[in-house]
């Protein structure tokens, strides 16, 4: 598969459907999408107006999908999309957009700009205009088992450590259990404490679970690059493992785009509904809480706040669940301004964090998060995406901020009451 302009344009043509046409038709050029975008807000550079990031796709739509545009094209009024255009747009489409979804919630005519940028990336990658780090990650993931290369030995080691620590067994490839758990590479490498936390919570709740040795990686760089082909290959590993093991459900971990990739894009990538449930770990914990299977004792008394990952709340619909869990274990919980569906992005999602040349822009974008945090001045920040966790920690170091960051599952597990009765 060699990338070329023609392939890129074809991929874009495939992405143009009735919603996209309605969005381009409706745009009134009001610029309100810019006001919502962290990249515009923190730079005030009009290049970062969200709808402008789609200009080549809009032109293609006009020229080929509208009668007036076709006439305009014949008269030379609507320029064709060139390879140079796509090249020029690469930094706009990949470096200055985390697919955070804020623009989509404010556009007065209802344009889902984020969805269109996700679609635009399909054309960009087919035309060969993708950041090299993302391509590298995709190649590694397709050739091995994770975007960081072969993580199987590391995962086995982390599992062994966890079993030694908790005394709770974690089995690989066990058929017929309740849930198959998948992890993001970030968790396996940087935040492996999640394993012990899940082991304890699931044991207390009486849930059986397993990890598939051939489908444990949750991340999916295909959805970030914008390549349905790669996304399908990666998601298929998880789906096929789950089907082979005959589990009731797959637990999507604390990773934003992984949830998006499996829960919302997954069935569409595979072209069929799954015969198992996809549940986000935080949804599952909230369910256990409601069923009384998540007993806790004690509470965090220091001031705690919460960061909503874009792909899990705004783009994923998980908003109340984490708050009910926070209420269980944090006595001094404060919300930041704009918390919930309008929370500000950490700046690292959508492949931006992996994209070296976007580092400066990402750190500039983080100033919004910084301001949000400084206003409530917490001792601790809880989130439910390992990549947000990583991005925030790294940026806070840059800005000399000292706030402890922790994953929600791990935070809840700290207060899990799993002492044997009477002990």
């Amino acid at each position, binding site marked *: 598969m060699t990338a070329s302009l023609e392939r890129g344009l074809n991929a874009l043509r495939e992405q143009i459907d009735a*919603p996209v046409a309605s969005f381009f*038709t409706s745009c*009134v050029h009001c610029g309100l999408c810019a006001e919502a975008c962290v990249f515009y*807000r923190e730079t005030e550079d009009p290049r970062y107006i969200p709808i402008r990031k789609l200009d080549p796709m809009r032109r293609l739509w006009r020229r080929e999908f509208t009668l007036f545009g076709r006439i305009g094209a014949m008269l030379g009024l609507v320029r064709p999309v060139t390879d140079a255009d796509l090249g020029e747009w690469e930094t706009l489409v990949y470096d200055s957009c985390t697919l955070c979804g804020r623009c989509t919630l404010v556009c*007065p005519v209802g344009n889902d700009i984020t969805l269109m940028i996700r679609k635009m990336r399909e054309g960009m990658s087919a035309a060969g205009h993708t950041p090299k780090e993302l391509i590298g990650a995709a190649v590694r993931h397709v050739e091995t088992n994770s975007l960081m290369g072969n993580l199987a030995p590391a995962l086995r080691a982390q599992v062994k450590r966890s079993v030694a620590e908790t005394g709770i067994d974690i089995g690989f490839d066990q058929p017929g259990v309740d849930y198959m758990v998948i992890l993001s590479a970030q968790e396996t490498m940087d935040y492996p404490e999640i394993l012990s936390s899940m082991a304890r919570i699931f044991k207390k709740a009486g849930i059986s679970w397993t990890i598939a040795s051939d489908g444990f990686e949750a991340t999916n760089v295909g959805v970030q690059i914008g390549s349905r082909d790669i996304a399908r290959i990666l998601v298929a590993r998880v789906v096929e493992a789950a089907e082979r093991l005959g589990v009731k459900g797959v637990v999507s971990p604390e990773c934003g785009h992984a949830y998006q990739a499996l829960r*919302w894009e997954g*069935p569409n990538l595979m072209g069929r509904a799954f015969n198992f449930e996809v549940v986000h770990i935080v949804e599952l914990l909230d369910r256990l809480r409601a069923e009384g299977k998540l007993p806790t004792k004690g509470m965090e008394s220091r001031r705690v706040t919460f960061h909503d990952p874009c792909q899990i709340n705004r783009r994923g*619909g998980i908003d109340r669940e984490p708050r009910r869990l926070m209420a269980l274990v944090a006595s001094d919980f404060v919300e930041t301004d704009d918390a919930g569906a309008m929370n500000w992005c950490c700046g690292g999602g959508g492949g931006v964090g992996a994209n070296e040349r976007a580092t400066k822009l990402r750190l500039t974008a983080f100033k919004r998060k910084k301001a949000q945090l400084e206003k409530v001045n917490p001792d601790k920040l809880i989130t439910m995406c390992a990549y947000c966790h990583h991005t925030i920690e790294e940026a806070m170091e840059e800005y000399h901020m000292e706030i402890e960051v922790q994953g929600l599952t791990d935070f809840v597990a700290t207060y899990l009451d799993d002492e044997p009765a009477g002990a």
Partner: protein
Amino acid sequence: MNPAFTLFMWARGPAFDVALAIFAAGITLRLVEMVVLGRKTDLAPAKGHPIRQGLATIFTRSIPRPGLVRFAPGTYLGGYVFHLGFFAAFLLFAPHIALIRDALGLSWPAANRAIVESATALAVVAAIILFFSRVMDPVRRALTGFEDYLVLLLSVLPLVTGYVAANKLFGNPEMMLAVHVLSVDALLIVFPFTKLMHSVSFVFSRYYNGAIQGRKGAES
């Protein structure tokens, strides 16, 4: 016969009929070429209520998100006042209602003259604010092209000419009325070719936005 009257009769007769035909056929064409592109069935099991939320979003998106207005007050304020003023002047003015009753048989109470005139004046002021924000503000400027100015001008002309004609402010009143109707004809003609289409297509775009978010149980 009086030339102003002849022009007026032409503007509201044959010219209006042609304009209306272009308006209706053009909108139909644009909606058809949009809808025929279709949409793949989403195979992910819904967590929320896509259809219900799509329909709701057609209305709820008219309310701005808290915290955003302060970043672009001119655009928000100008936008609201212009839309409300324009529709008040169009739909609550007694002679307009009479025309609509004659054409469609539908009718509703008119607003008092002072209200209609204030609404018109406010809409014109709003249009001026919107114009300046397009000229001065870097974001608006980056998005503005010839079409945006044309559409702004053509949407404000019926308001100004209508105000002048109704109040017999200057010129020959019949001539002013003829010019008013001509400005409406012009607005109808450019409608399907420009972003004025948003006044119809917003129903679709808001619906899709709400339905996509609603499937996930996310806000829209």
